[in-house]
């Protein structure tokens, strides 16, 4: 285990750029993953990730260490992702299929599966639902923290997470064998 997040954050707040870079580098993959699940589109997710990292870099001095750094970070990331989603909704753009290309180290079959199953399934539910799912399944936050970040009751968090997972479960069930779907859902 390396230097704790809180120590890096404190050093970064004092102007230690190396500490800031280490801290951001440590969490960038997870921030991107959260943004990716919320926004679906890879380029939008990269933009939101960049916005989130910039916001963290600028506001690192305001992190008081009372909460976990990741809770604070994921709140910033979620705000960036939802902001990006709102901007995209105001200004729809044609989808550039070529921008969602694989990174070199990701097998193409897993990427395709990821796109077809997870993205398609999550695209069937509203962005606010995807936000709850991403904060839970990628951020590992508990329902109370998610509720606070999204400004909704914990019970709503639970139902949104269930609905997001169910959308994917239904899709996976449909792909493998429709007869294996044991609960039909109205969407």
């Amino acid at each position: 285990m390396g230097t704790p997040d809180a120590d890096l954050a404190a050093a970064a707040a004092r102007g230690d750029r190396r500490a800031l870079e280490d801290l951001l580098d440590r969490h960038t993959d997870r921030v991107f993953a959260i943004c990716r699940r919320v926004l679906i589109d890879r380029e939008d997710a990269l933009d939101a990730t960049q916005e989130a990292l910039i916001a963290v870099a600028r506001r690192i001095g305001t992190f008081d260490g009372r909460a976990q750094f990741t809770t604070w970070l994921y709140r910033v990331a979620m705000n960036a992702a939802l902001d990006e989603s709102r901007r995209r909704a105001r200004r729809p753009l044609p989808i550039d299929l070529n921008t969602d290309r694989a990174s070199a180290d990701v097998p193409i079959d897993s990427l395709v599966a990821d796109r077809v199953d997870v993205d398609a399934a999550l695209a069937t539910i509203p962005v606010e639902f995807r936000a709850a799912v991403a904060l839970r399944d990628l951020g590992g936050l508990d329902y109370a923290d998610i509720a606070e970040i999204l400004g909704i009751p914990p019970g709503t968090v639970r139902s949104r997470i269930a609905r997001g997972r169910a959308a994917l479960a239904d899709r996976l069930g449909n792909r493998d064998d429709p007869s294996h779907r044991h609960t039909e859902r109205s969407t």
Partner: protein
Amino acid sequence: MTDTPLDPLAPEAVDELLSARADGEFDAAARDLGMTPLDAQARLDATPGARERERALVAARDAIADAPPLDDVTRRRLVQRAAAPVVPARVLGARRSGRWLVPAGGIAAAIALVIGVVALAHSSGSGAKASSANASATAPTQHVTEASGQINSAADLRRFVRGLPDSVNRSATAPLQSENYGAAPTPTTHAAVGGLSAKTQASGTTNAKPNRDEALRVDCPATLAKQLHATSPVLATRTVRSQGTRAVVVLFVKDKRTLAVLYDPKTCVPLITYLSP
């Protein structure tokens, strides 16, 4: 709820309970659904296919959590952009007072170019287009005041760069000749894009000194070029609005890619940067 304790649960309730159990939240979910945890479990047991459904939900959770990592280059770029220091105001002040020495060559040429900016009114009439084409042949730096431009995020900046006229993008990717930047006077066009009025003037026809704002704007690109290690002088500048205030986008080349920087013209502080793929 009208169900008896051993009635099968509705599909939504099954999903909510099973999903919550995967997160250690089963008891709270049961209570919220009006049942004790024991009742909820009994009714799940009475629901056909609940066990398979639970496996499917857990598999879905795992699939959602299984996100591919970023490649190293992209991750490094994101981090370095975020962690890049801003230009302190005192540096700019010191430079304006003559205490900050800069290499004369490329930066001075860039400054000269920004002063002698070139028009580009891609959405204006044919006359403006012809003017733009002629101008781009002699001096690649272009300045357009875009009254309706709003850039509030990296996404906006990326779209903005993508939406620039082809001549600008060609300038950004083509090899640059330094002698192009010394040509003066060059025409200056402030074009309001989107059907608004355009005003064109030749910078060679006036000897008026730039006002304070303009002076700041002239200084900023050179500062940013140095700070961001641009490999070209300024290619184009454009006045936009960001978060409701005036801002400027300046384009450079960096490592054969287009580097766009949105900055505050009063402080030279970069607000958003974008490096094309």
